[in-house]
């Protein structure tokens, strides 16, 4: 039970904060703040949507001040536009501007939005092309794309399982190290992608916050799950541990691939990449390594796992399937904030499972963590994924 004193100590700082807030708002800012600073106006152009003869500009007010949109120029020419509501944007308010503009396929366009006080906001359409609309053709294209770059390669990777299981037992540790190498690379890759996206999103969305939230949410959730599994005594069975690892790796890689899918889908829909066969093949080979990462922990205790085939297919689906979802979301409605969140979760999951495997290897009796086998395995993992990455240059 909370006594009165305790309650007071809990509430007092909050009360004080409100009192300060009241003083601040009713008597005005004090001293240094009291300057007539110019307005900080920010309009963030989220994306362009193109239809033949029409450009839609999706914008959000990214600043603390209200902004009035007065004029727009396209390639140094004033152009009439339509707004779906009024042209006044409150902070964080989103809107769409419609321009009847005779754009030409493949050309770049520089768009300047003028606020009422002459502040300008620039945006660029790098390659003008019709934005895909959600229809059967595009749906099929994106599903196909997702299957190609996500699901197939991972299943191919899983097909190495029969080969890997026949390897000598001491290769098991090599494979585990290889997996850690692969995961470490993927983890950093995912984080880097997330940081890159933060630079492209409205500042007011606080991208770093989203990243930190997603990253630790993943680590903490997975840790709590594996703790629960351990407390059920599953730890006694080695094969349960292997299975748990397999699924966790699949989840981490799945989220990574969701982010990858988002990137591919959105790049494709705005005409940034023409997905040539070389690029698709590159992605496939690159992602095959992800399949290896999933099966490696299973090579030791697979005999005791029931319904192994179902587990493998499930893992393949978990790891590869999100690519399809990603390309679909990315292709039809791209949100940087959501992408950052998923990428952060992916990175967290990947690092969590990599650390888990590492920890387990270190606990192994009579084994040093840094044997030649392990170190070579780790480097092999890094190198394989790095080198296959060159195939994805587009």
């Amino acid at each position, binding site marked *: 039970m909370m006594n009165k004193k305790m309650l007071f100590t809990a509430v007092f700082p909050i009360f004080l904060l409100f009192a300060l807030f009241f003083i601040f708002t009713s008597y005005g800012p004090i001293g240094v703040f009291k300057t007539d600073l110019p307005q900080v106006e920010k309009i963030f152009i989220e994306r362009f949507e193109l*239809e033949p003869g029409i450009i839609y500009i999706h914008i959000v007010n990214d600043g603390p001040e209200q902004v009035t949109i*007065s004029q727009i120029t396209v390639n140094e020419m004033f152009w009439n536009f339509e707004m779906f509501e009024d042209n006044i944007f409150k902070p964080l308010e989103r809107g769409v501007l419609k321009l*009847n*503009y005779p754009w030409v396929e493949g050309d770049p366009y520089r768009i300047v939005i003028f606020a009422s006080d002459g502040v300008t906001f620039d945006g660029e359409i790098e390659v003008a092309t019709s934005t895909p609309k959600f229809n059967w053709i595009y749906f099929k294209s994106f599903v196909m794309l997702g*299957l190609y770059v996500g699901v*197939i390669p991972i299943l191919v990777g899983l097909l190495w*399982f029969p080969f890997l299981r026949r390897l000598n037992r001491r290769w098991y540790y090599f494979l585990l190290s290889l997996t850690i190498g692969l995961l470490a690379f993927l983890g950093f890759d995912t984080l880097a992608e997330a940081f890159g996206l933060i630079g492209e999103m409205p500042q007011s969305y606080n991208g770093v916050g989203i990243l930190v939230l997603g990253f630790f949410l993943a680590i903490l959730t997975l840790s709590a799950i594996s703790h629960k599994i351990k407390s059920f005594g599953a730890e006694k069975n080695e094969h349960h541990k292997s299975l748990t690892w397999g699924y966790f790796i699949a989840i981490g890689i799945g989220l990574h691939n969701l982010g990858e899918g988002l990137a591919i889908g959105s790049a494709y829909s705005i005409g940034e990449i023409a997905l040539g066969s070389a690029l698709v093949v590159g992605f496939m080979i690159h992602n095959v390594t992800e399949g290896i990462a999933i099966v490696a922990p299973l090579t030791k205790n697979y005999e005791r796992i029931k319904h192994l085939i179902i587990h493998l297919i499930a893992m393949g689906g978990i790891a590869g399937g999100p690519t399809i979802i990603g390309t679909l979301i990315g292709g039809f409605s791209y949100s940087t904030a959501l992408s950052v969140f998923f990428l952060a979760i992916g990175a967290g999951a990947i690092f969590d499972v990599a650390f888990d495997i590492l920890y387990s290897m270190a606990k192994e009796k009579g084994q040093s963590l840094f044997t030649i086998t392990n170190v070579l395995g780790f480097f092999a993992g890094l190198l394989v994924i790095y080198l296959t990455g060159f195939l994805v240059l587009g």
Partner: protein
Amino acid sequence: MKNKMKKTPKIKIALGSLIVLFLILFIAFIVLISDYSEKGATNSPYSKVDSEFDYAKLEATAQMSGGAQGFVGEDAIGINPTEFLTTWNFNNLPTDERSKYYKETRLGDGTLLREYWIYAIDREIEVAPGIFYPAWTYNGQVPGPTIRATEGDTVRIHFINGGTKSHSIHTHGFHTNAMDGVMSQEQGLLLPDESYVYEFKAEPFGTHVYHCHGIPVTEHIARGLHGAYIVDPLKDTRPKPDKEFVMVMNGFDVNFDGENEIYAVNSIAFEYVRNPIKVKQGELVRIYLSNMLEFDAINSFHVHANFFEEYPTGTKLEPDFFTDITVMGQGERSILDMRFKYQGKYMFHAHKTEFAELGWTGFFEVEE
């Protein structure tokens, strides 16, 4: 050994199932791909022709959509832009109001003493519909009031700096060192709240300009401290014009990045598109054109379906050119005489077409 024998078939089943699954997926692809490539020619994401869209109508809509959005307010530039065209020596004001800014006195030699009261004022102007620019102005208007005298008249300008920066009136024409409007108060550059009287003989005849010469001069001119100064010849042998228009080509760097975003004649983008300048078929139209554009090296004037006699700087009584485009550097000006042959609406604009599409476009409406 026995144990292994037992497990191996299970693995084989697993492997077999995986391969079967793989094959099914592969076949699904082939189906998807074939379906896709069959329609690919017309439905691919990059195809240009799609029956869903009426291209001719879209193009027609697009062609009608150029230009600025909306309308400017009543007092956008401190003077009605149509009125500005035909206003000099404050002749748009009622007599008692006019006397506050302009006074004529006949001198003994028959010439006139023309006195002007001009104030530097900071105020916001609307240079395109909805875009407001913090300008520095003469008498609250951009371009400043047009000063017009006859060759030999005495021009006396009472200048009061009501702005927040140093300002002056620097006129193009003959005058003494003290009337130049540069450097210091001895030469007529004033600090805020100071005042000064510029006095000089109106010469030579021609169409000239005046502007502030406070530094940086670029900014002082670009902010709006510029205007036209016309000196009529004492003995004019040119044909007498039916209509006279004052046009000052200028532009505005609304985001202060050192480049103009908006171009215009008489300060407001596309103003004479919305309100065409009315003239009569066959009458002689005389334009006093000056270029007060900053940041860009050149500007130009072009009129449709017509040619004009050009008197560069207006300093001679015979035209030098008969043309339909004139190109001007910063501060240059000309007198253009033209007659419209046919009725209708005819565009005039900078033939630096980028400027035209950023606001420097207008129309003449030729009536019977």
